[in-house]
């Protein structure tokens, strides 16, 4: 009798196992076939939204871990290290002063030439509240979402360079795919030569500049910016610096390695960048509403239209261009340093 029960149990178990295996295979197939708006993708995004508040707890753990690492490093730092740090600090101060000079000079020249493509960088600051829960994806979760005007596809920047793109948004959080993710790709150009290509992530975390003309000259130290082609990333933002060119362009084996200007692993705050034209619209709408600043950006991106000639827009553009110039200068230094 007992044996009979065991047999029945095993038979039921086998049926359940087969059903679950079929379910698993079916889900994988559906996930691979469906688009990013498919039911499984949406379920994934829904879970991300639900788990966002829980992940905030993890951010605290990350800070504690970082603090512990810093404390250990500080406690074990010897006199030679401290001397080296002091020297480095003096060097950086000098570089900062020089950078400020360049920034001011750049602004004056830009004003004289009346360049139209000045940076109208407008965005919303966000805190990193979560990181990828698996080894296969390089993503972070931010504490801003649709309520703050964040939309899918927006560019995300660290203090001095692009770090990724928003790939999923919920009401109060969003998921950002980092540039280092193998599935990410950004249209880019080299600042000096204007050579265009695509910066892709890789499993090793390095960025590779691909699809570059075989005739194009690429040198170590070249600064790489977003080109804005395809419209997925805001134009002219710093990505990083070419650190290595391997192989030969003629036989198609050239590999251009780009060091990202921003190490996303260490970031705690980032900026989600709205597009330049949309930023101008927000400012104009705010001016029309009589409100000051860009505190209410929700919904305004798509609601207002105009030519960007208002004084509010101009002022903001100037401020934004200062910010961008500062980021660019800092970024170039960082890249050189790398």
């Amino acid at each position: 009798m007992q044996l009979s029960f065991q047999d029945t149990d095993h038979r039921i178990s086998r049926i359940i196992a087969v059903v679950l295996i079929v379910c698993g295979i079916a889900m994988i197939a559906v996930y691979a076939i469906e688009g990013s708006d498919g039911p499984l993708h949406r379920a994934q995004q829904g879970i991300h939204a639900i788990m966002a508040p829980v992940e905030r707890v993890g951010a605290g753990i990350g800070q504690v871990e970082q603090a512990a690492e810093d404390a250990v490093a500080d406690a074990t730092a010897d006199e030679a290290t401290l001397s080296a740090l002091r020297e480095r600090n003096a060097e950086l101060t000098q570089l900062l002063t020089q950078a400020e000079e360049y920034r001011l000079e750049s602004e004056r020249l830009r004003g004289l030439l009346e360049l139209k493509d000045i940076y109208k960088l407008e965005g919303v600051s966000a805190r990193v509240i979560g990181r990828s829960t698996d080894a296969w994806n390089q993503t972070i979760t931010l504490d801003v979402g649709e309520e703050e005007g964040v939309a899918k596809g927006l560019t995300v920047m660290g203090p001095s360079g692009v770090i990724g793109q928003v790939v999923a948004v919920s009401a109060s959080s969003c998921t950002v795919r980092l540039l280092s993710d193998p599935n990410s790709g950004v249209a880019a150009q080299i600042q000096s030569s204007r050579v265009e290509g695509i910066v892709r992530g890789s499993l090793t975390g390095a960025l590779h500049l691909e699809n570059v003309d075989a005739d194009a000259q690429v040198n170590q130290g070249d600064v790489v910016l977003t080109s804005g082609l395809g419209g997925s990333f805001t134009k002219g933002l710093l990505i990083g610096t070419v650190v290595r060119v391997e192989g030969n362009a003629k036989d198609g084996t050239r590999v251009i390695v780009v060091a990202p200007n921003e190490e996303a692993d260490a970031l705690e705050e980032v900026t989600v960048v709205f597009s330049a034209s949309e930023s101008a619209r927000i400012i104009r709408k705010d001016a029309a509403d009589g409100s000051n600043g860009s505190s209410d950006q929700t919904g305004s991106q798509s609601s207002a239209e105009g030519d960007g000639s208002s004084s509010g827009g101009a002022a903001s553009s100037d401020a934004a261009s200062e910010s961008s110039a500062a980021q660019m200068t800092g970024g170039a230094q960082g890249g050189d340093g790398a």
Partner: protein
Amino acid sequence: MIAAFASEIICAVVAIILQAVVAPYLAIGFAVPNIALAFAVAFSAASRRTTICIMPFLVGLAYDLLGSGPVGAMALLSLLASIVAVNLVVRFENGTPFVPIAALCIVILGADLLYAVICVTCGWDVGLGEALLTRSLPSWAYDTVMAVILYPLCRFILRPKPDEMDLTSIG
């Protein structure tokens, strides 16, 4: 029976929460520990239950939904790994910890390798060899360590309670 079921559910929920909250901050390089897989396999091996349990599938599914990989992949692999782990442990049980540890190593390696295959099949723009070398192997090492740590804990949780012991064996 009910107590064992409850402890299984509680442990699974804790494993999922740890995966969401703690695992990202335990990353070493690109290797993020897969606590969900490690727990599912370790718990199954510790239980010695050859009848199928849905828990590994659900834990794997939770992992898929928390991450950005193909949904269903880890659910499927977690289930298969648990089935293989239990059968290996039951078949080769010799009273030493070597058999369960070896079983955990083998099934987790298989799961991590197959996950890479599934990712590449689902359209990842990376080479299979690169994926295996840079992700599967580091993840396997990390996941195995996690499973080996979790295994004795699971054995402790699943130890027979005094009132559940077979009284006929006394005397």
